[in-house]
């Protein structure tokens, strides 16, 4: 790692051709994956990501360079090569401040835990899945963990390090009967060390994974139709993430691509919808103390009673949009320039009770578990899949259904949310966008959307 004086010199040199802003981002990440298949530890791998990303901005134009070679000589050559893209009067970098303290609150960092302790947990979890039912033919459990150490310094005086610890427990079960196979997956993640095993109830989840796989063997393909959809709490929040979160990112808003462009202060959803993106939820998978531009993360109110309150904004898009950055500058690693991204995004709890919402639904779909989804921020069109669902008939849950795919337009669906329950929960995933794949939480209480297009293979061919 280069020392602070050298970094200060490099930032000054970066501005000699007239760039307005220069930033150096150093990273060293060590990632470990341990996998148990059935009754054996079948795979252990280690991956180190190490390098520097250099970013210069002038009038909103960006030049970016990255290399795994962080020697002073190499970084200087990179700075020179990038600054040659600009011409103009030399600017001065602000003297670098002192780094602010960060607290990642990790109790047992993974690197301090012996491998045997990790494999013991994974083997026990695998056994819970495998021994649940003779129809379970395979179980895979995995512990993914990484520690990302970063240092970001820029010509505005920011000098900030941070250390992020991530842990994720993957649980998978495969059930098979009469040539039919069903696979169920859970992947709780936390910004934690080994204490994740005390936090996420993995043994209960493992049992649940096995039970759901068995259950899905008898699920019928859903008949395609339009109907009300009740989305269960937790992972159900992926609908808000796709339909609303991505289009609120400055990446889409700054260029006027998002349907929410220019809508601050206006109603963009039903009045029962209040939503936040929070970069600082203790232990949350999507948490960092500081963002990848060195700004302290914060809790951002996005929508209040249906009214749009804020976008998610990074430094560069903030300049274009005349909007304060929201601590949302993120990137997968040094190979990406940062941009506005989500952390822990959720719909705030309402007052309805889940039982009442279901009782109140004459006919519809109860989406208990969701798979992933995708959105096109320009058109607002999104989709997400239901991995475990039940029909609702006369206010009661009936047949299990499979293969349901929900589609809609984000700016329309927000107006169709007519019930919000009081049971906020979260789910974890890797969110992919132009600055790479990053850990994010999605969250919501159980909600009802009054009408959605539901795709499925059931019915008459």
């Amino acid at each position, binding site marked *: 790692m280069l020392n602070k004086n050298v970094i200060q010199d490099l930032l000054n040199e970066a501005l000699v051709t007239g760039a307005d802003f220069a930033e150096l981002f150093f990273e*060293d990440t060590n990632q470990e994956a341990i996998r148990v*298949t*059935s009754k*054996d*530890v*079948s795979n*252990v*791998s*280690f*991956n*180190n990501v190490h*390098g520097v990303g250099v970013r210069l901005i002038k009038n909103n*134009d*960006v*030049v*970016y*360079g*990255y*290399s*795994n*070679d962080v020697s002073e000589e190499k970084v200087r050559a*990179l700075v020179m*090569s990038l600054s040659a893209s600009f011409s103009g009067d030399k600017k001065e970098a602000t003297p670098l401040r002192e780094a602010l303290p960060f607290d990642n609150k990790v109790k047992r960092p993974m690197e301090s835990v012996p*491998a*045997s302790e990790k*494999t013991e947990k994974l083997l026990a979890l695998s056994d819970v899945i495998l021994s649940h039912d003779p129809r379970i*033919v*395979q179980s895979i459990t995995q512990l993914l963990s990484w520690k990302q150490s970063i240092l970001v310094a820029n010509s505005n005086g920011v000098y900030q390090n941070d250390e992020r610890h991530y842990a994720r427990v993957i649980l998978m079960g*495969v059930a*098979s009967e009469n040539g039919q*196979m*069903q696979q169920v997956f859970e992947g709780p993640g936390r910004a934690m060390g080994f204490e994740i095993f005390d936090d996420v109830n993995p043994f209960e989840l493992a049992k649940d994974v096995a039970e759901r796989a068995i259950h899905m063997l008898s699920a019928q*393909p859903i008949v*395609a139709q*339009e109907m009300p959809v009740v989305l269960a709490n937790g992972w159900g929040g992926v609908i808000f993430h796709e339909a609303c979160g991505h289009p609120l990112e400055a990446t889409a808003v700054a*260029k006027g*691509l998002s349907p929410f462009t220019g809508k601050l202060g206006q109603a963009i959803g039903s009045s029962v919808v209040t939503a936040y993106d929070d970069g600082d939820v203790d232990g949350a998978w999507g948490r960092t103390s500081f963002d990848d531009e060195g700004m302290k993360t914060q809790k951002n109110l996005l929508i209040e009673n249906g009214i749009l309150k804020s976008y998610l904004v990074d430094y560069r898009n903030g300049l274009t949009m005349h909007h304060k950055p929201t601590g949302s500058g993120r990137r997968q690693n040094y*190979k990406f*320039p940062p941009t506005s991204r989500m952390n822990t995004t959720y719909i705030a709890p309402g007052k309805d009770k889940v039982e009442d919402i279901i009782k109140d639904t004459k006919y519809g779909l109860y989406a208990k578990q969701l*798979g*992933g989804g*995708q959105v*096109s921020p*320009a*058109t607002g*069109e999104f*989709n*997400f899949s239901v991995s475990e669902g039940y029909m609702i008939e006369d206010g009661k849950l009936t047949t299990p259904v*499979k*293969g349901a*795919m929900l*589609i*809609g*337009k984000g700016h329309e669906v927000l107006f169709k949310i007519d019930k919000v329950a009081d049971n906020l929960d979260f789910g974890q995933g890797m969110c992919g966008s132009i600055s790479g794949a990053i850990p994010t939480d999605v969250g919501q209480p159980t909600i009802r959307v009054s009408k959605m*297009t539901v*795709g499925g*293979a059931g*019915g*008459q*061919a």
Partner: protein
Amino acid sequence: MNTKKWIELGLSKGLSDVEISVSESTSLKLVSYEGKIEQNTISDVSTVSIRGIYEGNIGKVKFEFISDDQVDKMLDKVIENAKVLTVKEPAIIYEGSPSYPEVKVNDFDFASVPMTKKVEDLITLEMRIRNNEKVSNVQTAVYQENTSGAILTNSKGLHLTRKNRFAYAYGVGVFKEGDDVTTAYEFDIFKTYDQFDPNKLADITIEKGLKSLGPVSLPTKFYPVVFSNETFSELLSVFSGLYSAESAYRHLTPFENKVGESIAQSNFNLIDDPLHEKAYFQIPFDDEGVACKKKYIIKDGVFQGFMNDLKMASIFNQDPTGNSFSGGIQTTNLYLEPGEKSFDALIEPIQDGVYITELVGLHAGVKAISGDFSLQASGFKIEQGKVVYPVNMIVVSGNFFEVMNAIEAFGNDLKFDVSGFGSPSVFVKSLSISGESK
């Protein structure tokens, strides 16, 4: 990098065999917006991967912080990781195949093209799209070039190298008519710079966008469905893991006991061909140093066998197929054999059907293991044998294993995508389409 020294160091630490691969890549990426370059990215990254066998188990590491000291630590890590394994499976580092296929190396140096020319061409691409009267914005326009090289060497004396150079470009147009918004792009990959024709690429993008303006959803029911060559390639890709020997060994594929049995209709032929001339990349050897070769996965509807790596070849007592990539078993260039029908002839018998040209959310809407898929789609309505108007916001659902037995006709328009999956357009008898009632 002194790989020879590192191998010796590994052996001296007690590893019985050591394999090192070093990959080096450089890239340039230009992004244009509103007629100027808004982002210019350059990169230069080397990565070292080491695999080593310790007491019969294989440990592996991959790292970017490269120094002799670090390699020393990483070799210790290989041993540490190997010790954690409890599985009793063959651990093999390869002495090499008897011979390797000849592959033409692309030696075109994209760096020899002046930067000003690349900038000019990319801006031409963006502005030609932008200047169309139905285009409200260009989301992004990108030119990227990549050069990569890799060395694979091991303690059994293997020493193989490969090089790769290519560039690509695309521009995403946002097309608007009234309240209706749609995006369109065409991805073009090229091996020499003179293959880059920004005007033509812009025109294809515009044509695609204009054609899909004013889409409607469709009434929910079962329709005859034609998948474009590009969308059927995507379906082939998401189910390709089912043909892996590891999936069979771990009970993760329904084809586990189906070798020699019919799993598709009798004119369904699925082939993995590392050297296919229409594919973007020709691949002489896999990540373990095994020579790649052409093989049928499904021939005349009958499942021919699994693709493997060295470990699985040993477990199943078979010859290695050369399909070890990125730490797992993957296809090289997997394609569905085309038929004889032109596209027009393919859709000619369809009275009331759907032509699908785009599938969205493949990572979420497919359950590979059960064959079920349910995917957001867009494309065109087919009526009386002709493509008539655009449709979007529909979901196409079915079961892929059933589709493999319900194909009415194969087109003659085989096309590969950049990840090495190829297909002709395919006419499927009947699938569920759900849409909106208006």
